[in-house]
């Protein structure tokens, strides 16, 4: 990634709250994503990690306006997305690959119809695909991109293995020729040997088509492999953002440190020498998020002051953002 690249997507103070019905007509906001900001450069892969329930999937979805964000703004190629027209335009440039290759494909559609559906829906943007032959050739081209046999175009999703289904999902995401893809845990349902095939394919497609990814996953080894930069989320907030190698070798936030140390390394000597930072307690419910720093209930360095105010997401080193009151003291 060179210095001259400009941000393709800018996310500013994005908030996504859900109203949870507490009974008796009362509702309480669940702050799934609370005030996160980041940029994604052109051609970059930004990894987004965190444990279940931290809001990483919601962040991806509300970025694409699959939910209506509660607050904040998303700026794509310099233009903020506001009106319905903006969203419709945006959706032809930004698509999504879903986690579960079993439930995200319609069992009653053939593979070629699944892959071409985004073209059919957005036909106003791609009038050339009204022509049946062109549409067919586009489907075959997409299948070739993702390494599917063109003879399988008339088959149904259930005839494919998990890895092949995920390829169909990727071909569908590529149909409208997007610039940006949100990949939501695209390899976590796959076996190790198949996972590597799909990771390589994401790499190849990025080189070939100049794609930008937001790569959401909980497997830190995979995220580190594919990402240029990594963002770490905890309880709806972003706690750290830096270059992939910095997050991994030189984490500054206590949560990131614990997360990295907990990764099971597939090397017995390293695994046994590894000093794990253990976190006590469980992740608090986002309905009852603790006051102050959301991590203070489990943080080994927490002080009373951490309970009082929310830490600012600040640039501590060049390009290395951390949200922690005590970041300077604990990293000395």
């Amino acid at each position, binding site marked *: 990634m060179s210095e001259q690249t400009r941000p393709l997507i800018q996310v500013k103070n994005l908030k996504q709250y859900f109203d949870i019905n507490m009974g008796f007509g009362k509702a309480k906001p669940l702050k799934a994503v609370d005030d996160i900001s980041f940029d994604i450069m052109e051609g970059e892969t930004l990894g987004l990690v965190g444990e279940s329930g931290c809001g990483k999937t919601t962040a991806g979805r509300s970025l694409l306006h699959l939910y209506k964000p509660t607050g904040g703004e998303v700026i794509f190629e310099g233009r903020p997305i506001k009106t319905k027209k903006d969203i419709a335009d945006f959706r032809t440039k930004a698509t999504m690959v879903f986690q579960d290759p079993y439930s995200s494909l319609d069992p009653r559609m053939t593979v070629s119809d699944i892959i071409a559906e985004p073209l059919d829906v957005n036909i106003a943007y791609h009038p050339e695909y009204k022509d049946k032959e062109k549409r067919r050739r586009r489907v075959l081209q997409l299948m070739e991109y993702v390494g599917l046999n063109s003879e399988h175009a008339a088959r149904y999703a259930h005839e494919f293995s998990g890895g092949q289904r995920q390829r169909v999902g990727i071909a569908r995401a590529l149909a409208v020729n997007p610039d940006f893809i949100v990949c939501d845990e695209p390899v976590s349902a796959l076996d190790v*040997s198949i996972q590597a095939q799909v990771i390589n394919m994401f790499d190849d497609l990025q080189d070939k088509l100049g794609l930008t990814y937001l790569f959401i996953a909980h497997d830190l080894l995979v995220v580190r492999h594919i990402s240029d930069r990594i963002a770490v989320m905890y309880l709806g907030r972003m706690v750290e953002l830096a270059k992939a190698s910095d997050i991994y070798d030189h984490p500054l936030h206590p949560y990131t440190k614990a997360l990295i140390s907990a990764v099971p390394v597939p090397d017995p000597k390293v*695994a046994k020498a590894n000093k794990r930072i253990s976190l006590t307690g469980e992740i608090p419910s986002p309905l009852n998020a603790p006051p102050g720093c959301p991590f203070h209930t489990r943080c080994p360095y927490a002080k009373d002051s951490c309970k009082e105010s929310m830490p600012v997401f600040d640039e501590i080193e060049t390009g290395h953002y951390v949200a922690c009151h005590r970041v300077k003291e604990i990293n000395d």
Partner: protein
Amino acid sequence: MALLEVRDLHTSFFTDAGEVRAVNGVSFDLDYGKVLGIVGESGSGKSVTAYSIMQILANTGKIVSGSIKYNGQELVGAGEKVMKEIRGNKISIIFQDPMTSLNPTYTIGRQLREAILLHTDRNKEEAKARAIEMLKLVNINEPEKRMKQYPHEFSGGMRQRMMIAMALACEPDILIADEPTTALDVTIQAGILELMKDIQKKIGMAIIMITHDLGVVAQMCDEVIVMYAGSICEQGTEDEIFYNPCHEYTKGLMRSIPTSDNQGEKLQPITGTPIDLLNMPKGCAFAPRCDAAMKICIREKCERFQINDDHAAACWMNVKKAAEEGGATA
């Protein structure tokens, strides 16, 4: 005599589409105080091996042949009465999904007490005391209060701890853990794995750790079995498997995981897709996906080949290498 001796185990499922040979000649020994890891991808037969030991296969599944000896006692064909004595008492199992393996309508305490009352001579009061003691052992705070709660009030990590408490309540000799941490987050996983190691050191039982995650194996195991398509491809001590893999499938697996060494490089995945167990090839099951496959690999299945005292693999490459080296020295 080893604590558990499995010899040439064959387990099949008889489905409408035909016989599915899920486990195809698996043999291993397990001793007190050892952690044995069984790794493989989905459909490799690792869970079915465990279920065969416990004899908790689905209706269509059956142990076709082979022998499973626990402390010298043959379990295959021993009958339900003997197995009831063994299950939970001598050999315990914890499952992957702590959400579905607990009964949502009973309290945690009742489910724990049930396991204890069923397998030991303790009376109700003693069972309750034992249950509280077990919850303490797996680091659950305020066990008295927790006993009265229902599974939905527990988080995923706590439910898995509770499962471990239940499995260990009767002091089994062998604990089978079937993907115990796959459904959990990494920080929670690390805690559970550490807990299992600690308890194992305290009690001295043996653990069979079934997982697809080589990272978990590296952290936990003394010995490792790598399975593919129902057979053992490679078996040996942890160091031998990780630092001197001798089966093409194991080598492929190691190359396909991202590590700190292959950063910025392309991963080298195993090509193709896992095999269809209904249409097993005549030769080596891995041959259709193997880059190094030779003619003999397609023609004939390779038998287990001892590489050294701590290591065996079923790959023709080793036979070929040994023959070449033998030829060179002769």
